[in-house]
């Protein structure tokens, strides 16, 4: 990547300083807290799985027992669970069945603490070893099929609601060149405080994220990987009330990417801010350990705010997401910071403003595989114009060397993509990106021109905005509606009751293993 904008280095540094300052008190809070889903994610890594006859997942059964009993979650679910498991003399799998059938984990008196801890650590190790093996497998495939993915990677969504139909759509897309398949989640799964179990065929606007669905899609894509000699990445949504659990499931089933934003749940799903910050940290540690590339959700800002006027909120959020990600042990090359081409297509020189924004992000986050989202808001039933807009987007993405390119669909305003919509999107993107492959290397921007001026303005505006946030404090800034024109009270939103203050004796063998594996200090700093 060649720098072209001549952005003032000191202002970029100042923004990073501010991000650190803004994140610090939040991270302090996070350090002292867990949540029901953090605990369930912990259980999942320890091997807890399955569901009862009503479809309630075993991790939920376990955590709910502790929640509703005296055995407070403040000590961490692991101790009680491993204690009961050990006492049962059963394997984890066998014990899962027992719990599903109604067995309680909270009744048994605590036995030999050291033995429990040892068993817990062993289980954590076993779980994380599986994750590490997945990571190693992925790395070996990426090595084997080096340079076979497109640059940027072409990211296609499937969203039939039925995992088996999704498989057909995904394989079709992968055969025609998709590098990444995202299985879009059913409407509002974010708001479920559990993860459904098993293969599912009934979603709306997307398919349930379940571990079995992950497994089915993974196998389908591995097939194409071998057939085409190109590693096909799988991604899903690590967001909402079960963020850490989805991370755990993804890590266990070798997903490769995750939509995983530090504030999305707060702003766009009205999930409690404290809960969200706690959950995002744990989920990101898992993603970091699993080598999963996260995608942040800055594009969402632009679906409600104006992309031209509020461009700086995107950049500010990128800095914050970066900070929170570092704090969770993610290296830059796993940070798919998000942004989108969402300016009004009627703006004169809009192409240049979008180019400026994309190039700016590229230069400020040089090692980060930026995830670039296509126009959605201004897409209309005019599929022909839509195709043209999408192609403008293809151009800018390649011209600014984005990392992950979510393909626009000409039918964006109409329906979740048909097989042919995806095909047309892929054909167009492949054509354009090949035809202007060296464009980025070829051009310079004029000093004093629109692109350089705009990029500097947005950066400056961002720094000013972050100064304000730093002054107010992040949670207060959110309360005042400084992001995405949305106001969220600190103590409002969903899931606050699932927040858990860590007690004196809080023990979490998974967290410990993750932290030590990721080289994170107790304070979570890096």
């Amino acid at each position, binding site marked *: 990547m060649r720098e072209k904008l001549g952005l003032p280095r000191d202002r970029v540094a100042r923004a990073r300083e501010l991000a650190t300052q803004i994140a610090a008190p939040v991270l302090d809070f996070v350090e002292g807290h867990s949540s029901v889903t953090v605990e369930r994610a912990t259980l999942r890594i320890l091997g807890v799985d399955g569901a009862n006859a009503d479809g309630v997942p075993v991790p939920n059964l376990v955590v709910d027992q502790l929640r509703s009993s005296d055995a407070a979650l403040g000590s961490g679910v692991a101790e009680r669970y491993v204690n009961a498991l050990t006492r049962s003399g059963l394997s984890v799998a066998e014990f899962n069945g027992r719990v599903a059938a109604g067995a309680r984990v909270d009744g048994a008196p605590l036995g030999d603490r050291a033995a429990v801890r040892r068993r817990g650590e062993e289980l954590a190790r076993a779980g994380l070893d599986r994750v590490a093996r997945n990571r190693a497998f992925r790395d070996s495939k990426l090595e084997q099929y080096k340079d076979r993915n497109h640059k940027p990677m072409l990211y296609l969504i499937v969203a039939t609601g039925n995992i088996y139909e999704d498989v057909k759509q995904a394989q*079709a897309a992968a055969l025609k060149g998709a590098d990444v398949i995202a299985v879009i989640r059913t409407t509002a799964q974010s708001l479920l405080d559990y993860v459904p179990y098993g293969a599912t065929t009934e979603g709306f606007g997307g398919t349930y994220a379940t571990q079995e669905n992950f497994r089915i899609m993974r196998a389908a894509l591995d097939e194409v990987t071998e057939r085409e000699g190109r590693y096909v990445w799988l991604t899903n949504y690590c967001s909402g009330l079960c963020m850490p659990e989805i991370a755990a499931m993804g890590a266990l089933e070798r997903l490769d990417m995750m939509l995983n934003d530090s504030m999305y749940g707060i702003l766009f799903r009205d999930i409690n801010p404290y809960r969200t910050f706690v959950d995002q940290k744990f989920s990101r540690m898992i993603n970091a350990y699993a080598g999963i590339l996260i995608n942040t959700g800055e594009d969402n800002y632009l679906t409600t705010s104006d992309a031209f006027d509020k461009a700086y909120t995107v950049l500010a959020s990128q800095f914050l997401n970066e900070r929170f990600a570092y704090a969770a042990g993610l290296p830059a090359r796993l940070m798919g910071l998000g942004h989108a081409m969402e300016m009004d297509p009627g703006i004169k020189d809009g192409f240049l403003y979008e180019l400026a924004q994309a190039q700016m992000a590229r230069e400020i986050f040089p090692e980060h595989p930026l995830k670039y989202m296509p126009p959605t808001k201004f897409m209309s039933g005019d599929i022909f114009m839509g195709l043209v807009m999408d192609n403008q987007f293809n151009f800018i993405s390649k011209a600014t060397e984005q990392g992950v390119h979510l393909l626009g669909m000409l039918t964006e305003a109409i329906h979740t993509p048909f097989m042919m919509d995806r*095909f047309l999107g892929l054909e167009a993107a492949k054509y354009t990106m090949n035809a202007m492959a060296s464009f980025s290397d070829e051009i310079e921007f004029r000093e004093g021109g629109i692109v350089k001026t705009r990029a500097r303005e947005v950066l400056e505006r961002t720094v000013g905005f972050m100064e304000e946030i730093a002054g107010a404090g992040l949670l207060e800034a959110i309360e005042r509606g400084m992001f995405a024109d949305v106001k969220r009270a600190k103590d409002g939103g969903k899931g606050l009751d699932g927040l858990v203050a860590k007690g004196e004796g809080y023990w979490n063998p998974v967290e410990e293993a993750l932290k030590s594996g990721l080289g994170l200090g107790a304070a979570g700093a890096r």
Partner: protein
Amino acid sequence: MANIVRPYGDTLDDGKVQLSFTLPVPDGPRGREAARLAVLGWGFRECEVVHSAEVSDGFSFYVAYAVADRGVDYDSVVADEAQGEEGSMGMDEVNDYIRAHIGRKVVVVGACTGFDAHTVGIDAIMNMKGYNHHFGLERYPMLEAHNLGAQVPNEKLIEYAERVNADAILVSQVVTQKDIHVQNMTQFIELLEAKGERGRFVCVAGGPRLSNKLAVELGFDSGFGRGSYADDVATFIVRKIVEKAEAS
């Protein structure tokens, strides 16, 4: 006398239509012929399959042009859109109309219901700012507008409407996959009917993939699709209130 209109390519009544679709068969001469026969089977003639491509194993994509002889009697076509032919009043006119014919503030409650999280559409209709240079209902002095946002369960919306003694309820539905909007809207009307309150409110639905026809079928007073504005909706509501008052 009938006034039959047909598709127009470059000559009146040439009937030219462009189609594209996928068939679950491999690409090739036989696939192309299947595509051609399919188009003829839908009542077109002179179908030319101008492009075919493999989309996946056993799936192929076609672009075709064909001639439709069958037209529509334009004279008999009645616009099925809530704003209708009559035309909408502007903001000031609506307020004047309320002052003249209703004589008190009209209360409107709106939300995007179910798990649907798309606020932009209902906001476009209700928020001060409005949309595309049409102010939203909140800006109308003679309206009292309550926008509950998105992801609002039908029950909550109705309770709220009862509490503020609303005249009209606005329901937005954007996600339509697997007909989830139909389920949602049906449940809304059933709830109202179960409470014996259907007659109490003017019920208006809206969303980009909604037709007035569908909304009316599901028991709403009207439905507004893409490109509708607050003035259209306000006009409909106040006229309806007066019409109901006159009828009773």
